């Protein structure tokens, strides 16, 4: 029996420690389901939500789907159980998130999507960067750097995610018939995969002069591969302007990064959550502006 008691005590202490205080209040609660917290971009987005929620007087509950659709669905179900007033979803996958959005619809809880959209279910508003414009921006700048017919690589994001599709579309629009894309592969928005994929591409291709990665994590992975292979004169353009990438641009190791504003996306989604909870009308799509950060 003693063993059970000690087990109980330890588990109880653990839970209490990690939950901190569990007081209730009358504040409205925002539930945020984030695709992953293993990527600084989404951590910025989450921080934006939390700071703005604090500012405007909302409680906020954050669940991490760890890039897995089934966990995302469970998380949204758990948010519904928690009876939150509004749910902000940053989907892991535009198609698979449909079931989660529908579950919230059934529970009559309004849904906002951020960054990636949902292809099914009723979403009040979708807040995202104008990714097509961003991809175009990156393509035009890379073209300017490497000149016509340069051999370039495109590292794609998670297949099927709307950011992947839109950034790819914008980029390819800008460089069509002007640059020569020698390799186009997915590295799933992941730095380690970016490194591995780029290493393989370097092995297989010669004379690469530019890389466009659909996010900075992959761009930095590619950069690591390029530096390890001691190749020079390859311009790497990323997307998202994470701290690491901006530093790399300032050091002249990366050519540029398209600045999405994840924190702004987070704060805007709370602003719109407030409008929705106040029964104001909001547009179905809210674009968040982008800028290009280049080396001086």
């Amino acid at each position, binding site marked *: *029996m003693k*063993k*059970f008691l000690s*087990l*109980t005590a*330890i*588990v*109880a202490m*653990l*839970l*209490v420690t*990690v*939950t901190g205080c*569990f007081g209730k209040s009358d504040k409205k609660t925002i539930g945020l389901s984030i695709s992953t*917290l293993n990527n600084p971009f989404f951590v910025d987005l989450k921080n934006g939500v939390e700071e703005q929620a604090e500012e405007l007087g909302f409680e906020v*509950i*954050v*669940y*991490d789907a*760890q*890039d*897995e*659709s*089934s966990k995302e*669905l*469970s*998380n949204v*179900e*758990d948010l*519904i*159980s*928690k*009876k939150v007033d509004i749910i902000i979803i940053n989907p892991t*996958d535009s*198609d*698979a998130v*449909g*079931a989660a959005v529908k579950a919230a619809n059934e529970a009559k809880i309004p849904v906002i999507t951020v960054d990636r959209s949902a*292809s*099914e279910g009723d979403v009040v508003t979708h807040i995202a960067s104008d990714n097509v414009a961003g991809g175009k921006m990156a393509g035009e700048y890379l073209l300017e750097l490497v000149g016509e017919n340069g051999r370039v690589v495109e590292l794609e994001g998670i*297949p*099927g995610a709307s950011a992947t599709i839109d950034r790819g579309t914008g980029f390819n629009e800008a460089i069509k018939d002007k640059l020569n894309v020698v390799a186009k592969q*997915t590295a799933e928005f992941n730095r380690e995969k970016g490194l591995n994929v780029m290493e393989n591409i370097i092995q297989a291709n010669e004379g690469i002069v530019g890389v466009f990665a659909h996010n900075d994590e992959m761009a930095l992975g590619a950069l690591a591969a390029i530096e390890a292979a001691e190749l020079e004169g390859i311009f790497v353009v990323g997307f998202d302007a994470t701290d690491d990438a901006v530093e790399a641009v300032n050091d002249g190791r990366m050519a540029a990064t398209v600045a999405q504003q994840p924190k702004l996306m987070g704060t805007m989604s709370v602003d719109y959550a407030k409008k929705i909870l106040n029964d104001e009308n909001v547009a179905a799509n809210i674009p968040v502006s982008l800028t290009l950060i280049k080396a001086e």
Partner: protein
Amino acid sequence: MNKVKDFLGKNTALVGLIVLILIITVIDINFIQISNLSNVLRQVSINGLIALGMTFVILTGGIDLSVGSIFALTGAVLTKMLLSGVDPVIAIILTLILGALLGLVNGVLISYGKLQAFIATLGTMTLYRGITRVFMDGRPITGFKSDLVNEIGRGYFLGIPIPTIILIIAIIIVAFILKKTIFGKEVYAVGGNETAARFSAININRVKMKVYTISGFLTTIASIILASRLNSTQPNAGMGYELDAIAAVVLGGTSLAGGRGRVFGTVVGILIIGFLNNGLNILGVTSFYQDVVKGVVILLAVLIDRKK
């Protein structure tokens, strides 16, 4: 009183589960609502089915690391068939056969190929994942329309989610097989002492092939449920599921050395993992701490079990 102590002594995991439920309920009453419990029971059905199959495998002293990849590949094949207009009933049957065959391949490699289970299933884990990615071209498959298939993951029968009902039926059948059939006794015998089992004229190769086939089959049922719930399948679906399943089996007191363990233990293990995942969410524990708590709970449970 002694009887109670005796019962508790044999059911550490069950006591742990009850304590867990009590603690979470005390902290947040939302946890114990029917709708939340129903959510948890539906959420655990996927890991539950895989863990049941894993119980057979572990009882023989083996391990099946390929379940996550079988999960992804069978889901992909099912959705592809549905999209190309194959009759849903036929698609489901073919998918189940495929899952059983993928498991059988493991069994053949381990029994006739004389490979260690860890190595054989590590190989097929990578192989099946690779085939899945080739088959799906790295992209999710979505948008199939089939009321029957959708019902499997999303429907209710008498107010109980259908995935939960499937899990309960599977538990009953598995418990029956292990307790009441000759095959069940052979599973324990092979895991307990393979040499002795061989001398008792048990066809060890056949037993091994059967357990991996069962593992593949049950994993495929889980895969069909998830495909139905999400109305889509992802190329990286099921990654890490083998570890959740192994954790459930071990939490339930089944020995990784084989020969010792019960289905009831696995069921409790499944519920502990399910309630822990959901409970930590309900309590608002951030995801990084969730892993810390889960790791500690698994280690504690195993340590306490070892002490007895």
